[in-house]
């Protein structure tokens, strides 16, 4: 976050001067084409990772608040400092009333990131109120067919937000910076055998994990590993423990958020005799990713580096 802002500071002036004339702009949001006649000025974002994308583009002055964070206790110090002046309008998914009550003109959310398929808050249900919706690319799998998840999905969201808010220069600089950072990093990465990685989000009776279309699959691959569940045709998905034991992951990535701590999740896996022969458990190879690092957002690059460091820690 901090690095990004120092990187684009010189470009700020140029960006604001050049961008206002670009409207109307049309962006693709999942299976919709959305046209903006002017940049939104009363935006609301849902969840920590989406809110961080807005902040990375310096859009806090265009926002009237955020939603869907407290319920999962995922707000860390960095983010808290940055959203300091913004109110949390709802600890969980917002109702239509919350968005209307804030006189919002824009809602940045995703499917299962602040909107439910068939729920009361959807792009269609908000359209008549003049609230435009941009959907998180990773979550589009819930409403349409998509290719496997990629770090490009996160870039696409930043670039689209840049277009929508008339800060495309800033967005392009930010994304270009990420691309460069990742390319430099990959060039120095030793290409050994790709370790099998299991993403453990939550659940004891059944594990909740990241399938083919969830961001961690892309993060693990960028770090030189392979998600052992990348053939599961879902985004975030509940599976059975047998498949985990069968596929013998060498590394387990814990997604840290909510009531059960990362240590408790690790302890659960270590204490269960069924998992004792899984290489990751036997060799104590656990990596903890914060929720905001494992979901699409500006911290994905740092997450990839942390994963790679762990993969090569032999």
């Amino acid at each position, binding site marked *: 976050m901090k690095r990004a802002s120092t990187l684009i500071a010189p470009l700020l002036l140029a960006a604001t001067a050049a961008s206002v004339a670009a409207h109307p702009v049309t962006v693709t949001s999942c299976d919709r084409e959305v046209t903006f006649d002017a940049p939104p000025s009363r935006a609301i974002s849902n969840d920590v990772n989406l809110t961080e994308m807005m902040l990375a583009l310096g859009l806090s002055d265009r926002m009237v608040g955020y939603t869907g964070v407290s319920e999962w206790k995922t707000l860390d110090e960095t983010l808290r400092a940055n959203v300091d002046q913004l109110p949390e*309008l*709802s*600890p*969980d998914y*917002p*109702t*239509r*009333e*919350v968005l*209307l*009550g*804030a*006189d*919002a003109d824009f809602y940045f959310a995703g*499917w*299962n990131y602040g909107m*439910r*398929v*068939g*729920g*009361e808050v959807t792009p*269609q*249900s908000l359209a*008549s*109120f*003049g609230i435009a919706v941009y959907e998180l690319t990773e979550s589009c799998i*819930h*409403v349409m067919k998509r290719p496997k998840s990629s770090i490009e999905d996160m870039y696409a969201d930043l670039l689209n937000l840049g277009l929508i808010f008339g800060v495309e220069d800033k967005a392009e600089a930010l994304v270009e910076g990420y691309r460069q950072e990742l390319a430099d990093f990959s060039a120095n990465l030793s290409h050994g055998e790709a370790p099998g990685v299991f993403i453990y989000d939550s659940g004891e009776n059944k594990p*909740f994990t990241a399938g083919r279309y969830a961001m961690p699959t892309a993060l693990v691959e960028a770090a030189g590993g392979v998600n052992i569940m990348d053939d599961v045709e*879902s*985004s*975030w*998905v*509940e599976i059975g423990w047998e498949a985990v034991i069968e596929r013998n992951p060498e590394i387990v990535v814990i997604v840290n958020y909510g009531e059960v701590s990362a240590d408790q999740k690790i302890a659960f896996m270590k204490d269960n005799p069924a998992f004792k022969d899984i290489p990751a458990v036997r060799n104590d190879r656990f990596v903890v990713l914060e929720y905001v690092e494992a979901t699409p957002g500006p911290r994905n690059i740092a997450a990839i580096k942390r994963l790679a460091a762990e993969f090569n820690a032999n």
Partner: protein
Amino acid sequence: MSHHHLVAGPRHAILHQLPLILAALAFLLVATMVAAVSLGSVAIPPETVWGVIANHLFPGSVEVTWSGGRDNIVWEVRLPRVILGATIGASLALVGAALQAITRNQLADPHLLGISSGAALGAVIVLLHTGMFLGLATVPLFAFGGALLTTALVVFVANFSDATDASRLVLTGVAISFVVTSLGSLGIFLGDPRAAHTVIFWMLGGLGLSQWAQLPYPLLALLCCGCYLLANARHLNAMTLGDESATTLGIPVRRFRMVVFVVCALLTGAAVAFAGVISFVGLMIPHIVRLVVGGDYRRVLPLSALVGAIFLVLADIAARTIIPPQDIPIGVITGLVGGVFFVALTRKRKPR
């Protein structure tokens, strides 16, 4: 017919004052609805509420001093929601009363005979498997279709196995309900787990999806089915006495039972399609009404409709104001409040 005393309950002085009671309850319903529009997660002063409503009915009658968002909250979110709540409450209470008569079963309610599980299955198929390929109308259409198909199945199986008497109709309905519920669970299991939250929300019921464009359908269902049931109140009275007695009164018992069942399915399907599965209202409201005015369906039906409407609007106020800005699923409220209230009521009326 008119000389038959078909009233199962006590003969209260109340019986002769039906129009007065109906008027009082209607007034109470309107008052409750007005309160419901004023209350919610966003605090909107009553004068703004009235201003918005007046301005939409008579454009330009009041000077606009409120934001567009507030206007939308009152006119596009709360008002349709409150009207939908009243409609659904009345529908479910009517269905419960009618089913309790034709099955002669104290525990009959709209969700007992498989109607709701069919609607839920329809919704699960859309939400988790096909997607909203017909836009916003997809879920209500499938839910309604599921309710009707399940009802058709129950009627078919009941006729096929010659189980159209009261108790065996209940058994058939419950059996089909189990099958359809299992199919629904399988659908949830096979679907995306995070989308399953949507289904859970839908199965607990709620009025959050309400909008003007959809209101005519449940209202029309209530009007048509409600009129049919009211017109047949005497027949329902006869049904409570048993099949033999009803036959001697000249009622084609088996056919009448099936027709009422299908009418109830239409009404339940329309209710569930727009608000999910809301429990308790259909089961308990008729009992509460009968405790007060006795068992004559000419009174039980209209009073159940009004009390059901008032109750559900009140429950929705609670759902929206207990932990703002979040909506508690309304089924949770109806179950909690209703259960306690009913226990208190039965205790009070214990024979000494």
